[in-house]
């Protein structure tokens, strides 16, 4: 049940858990999302450690990272970069924006104008940037961790539903429990720990992990299970549009990464169930204006309705 090589993810997870107190599930999901080569959307109120999580991820994985605070006056060029006229050489040169990094933290992404949002989302999708006629490849690995505040409405532009599926997962952190909150209060900013920690991984290590996740075995019985889950969302009357085939692929990818994190070389129904909520909930448009209310109950309702294969 353990991968043949020593699992490099254990160290990474331990380090992350030291920085992000009391959120092992969210931390694992975030890491699984990156190993599955997916982008992550963290939706939560401010102050619960969204930025810390992103920062810690970058540090532990040994990735170069950039943070962009999204505001309503942020322009696409502010992220992607801009062509400036170089007087000395008499020609335009492209000055790369903050997106040219391995991990981009897009903070409060719902504050930017739709135009800016879509520039970011496009780059996320393509993993490259086109300016004028030149295409610039983004580094590999390349991750976007975006945050948005679900309760803030005034003057914000929530990401359009149709574009939400560019994110492999949407997670929320939630408030820490009493014990961890006390630890937080006692020990101050956990980010201060980061500089003293050695990165557990490197970009090469991340790429290896991504490749290893691809090799995790997915049995036909499990594919049937995923198929049944996806199909069940298409038949529900409380869902306007069921999961797309792309969502199904994402589900398998995320489940593979999750199994890898658990040290397994095969995917179990439990892995699919663990990642189903984060992968599916933001892609399901619900009927009757039942909007964002109570994702968890909704998702577990779907899971309950589909028997696991025996």
């Amino acid at each position, binding site marked *: 049940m353990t991968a043949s090589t020593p699992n490099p993810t254990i160290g990474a997870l331990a380090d992350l858990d030291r920085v992000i107190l009391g959120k092992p599930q969210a931390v694992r999901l975030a890491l699984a999302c990156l190993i599955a080569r997916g982008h992550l959307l963290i939706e939560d109120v401010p102050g619960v450690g969204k930025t810390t999580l992103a920062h810690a991820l970058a540090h532990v994985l040994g990735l170069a990272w950039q943070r962009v605070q999204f505001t309503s006056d942020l322009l696409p060029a502010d992220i992607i970069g801009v062509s400036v006229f170089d007087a000395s050489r008499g020609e335009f040169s492209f000055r790369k924006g903050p997106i040219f990094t391995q991990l981009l933290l897009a903070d409060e992404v719902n504050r930017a104008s739709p135009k800016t949002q879509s520039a970011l989302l496009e780059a996320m999708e393509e993993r490259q940037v086109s300016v004028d006629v030149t295409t610039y490849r983004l580094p590999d690995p390349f991750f976007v961790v975006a945050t948005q505040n679900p309760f803030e409405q*005034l*003057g914000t532009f929530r990401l359009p539903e149709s574009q939400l599926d560019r994110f492999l997962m949407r997670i929320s952190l939630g408030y820490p429990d009493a014990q961890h909150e006390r630890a937080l209060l006692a020990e101050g900013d956990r980010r201060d720990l980061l500089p003293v920690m050695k990165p557990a991984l490197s970009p090469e290590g991340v790429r290896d992990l991504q490749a290893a996740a691809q090799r995790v075995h997915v049995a036909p019985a499990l594919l049937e299970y995923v198929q049944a889950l996806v199909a069940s969302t298409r038949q529900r009357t409380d869902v306007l549009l069921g999961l797309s085939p792309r969502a199904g692929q994402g589900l398998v990818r995320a489940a593979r990464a999750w199994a890898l994190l658990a040290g397994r070389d095969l995917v179990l129904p439990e892995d699919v169930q663990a990642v189903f909520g984060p992968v599916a909930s933001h892609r399901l448009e619900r009927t009757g204006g039942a909007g964002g209310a109570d994702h968890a109950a909704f998702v577990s309702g779907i899971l309950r309705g589909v028997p696991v294969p025996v």
Partner: protein
Amino acid sequence: MIRERRQSKGTWRAQLRDRVRSWARRRQGEDSLPVTLATRRVYILPTRAGFAFAALLLLMLLAGLNYANSIALIVTFLLAGFALIAMHLTHRNLVGLALRGVATTDAFVGEHGRLLLTLDNTADTPRIGIECETDETERSPVDVPATGSARAELGISLARRGRLRLDRIRISTSFPFGLFRAWSYAHLPMELLAWPAPRGRRDPPAESTSGGQATAVHRAGDEQWSSLRAFRSGDSPRQVAWAAYARGRGLLVKVYESPAAHHRTFDFDRVPGEVEQRLEQMSAWIVDAHARGESYGLRIGGEALPPSSGSEHRERCLDALALYGDPEPRP
């Protein structure tokens, strides 16, 4: 705003149909989900083609008997047995089917609202050509796979603004030979809203920044900068966080928490014209603002929706327009 049902032309057929329906209603009572179409609630009668087929068989029988023609009689009996099997197959195609879920989607007047039905088949053979309809919709056939489910979508054309109530779904089938039609009723309360059609050429009210009570939602003041970001060429020196620079953290720029997003509030009382026209105008504004991704609020009747964006907000606003003048709350 309960809309009366589509008036059937006062023919005896329509009257008979209404009689049968109300009889079935009294017999079965109100249903609750899931509704399994048990034998006692499945009715079956020959279709028009079925009656024609029966007449043909009768003629063949008479000819066979009169001319003592054995082959004609055999063919007649074979086809009669075939028709009985057809009846059985049609009945079987419906009995045991379960209606698991019912949902409605709202739409603008002049468009089609949708009624979504989830049908469950526990049998190991598929059920083909299951047709669902309500008093307001046409039949739309759907196939339910073996031990699976299928979703039927019914378009309900919306002619008048407001609440549309439906209380009966008719599920029927004439598969496989179209000689018989088996049907069953599910009596469920359903409701959907017809939003006022987006019509009107008036310009929307001017944009305002941060309106009066809306600031309550807003959490940070303009004076407070909330975060720092790296300096980029073109940033004003006045925004540079010199203190941070002094601490050796590099050239950082203060980012202000800004409400600067523009938003409008559509106020029913400020739109001139007749009630329906005003509602349509507001509907058009909402649709436009949503399409541009703008933030907007709504004030109508005693209700005020704070400015926001997104499809949920849009629906909430349109619902408020649809229910204007309706004393009952949205359930």
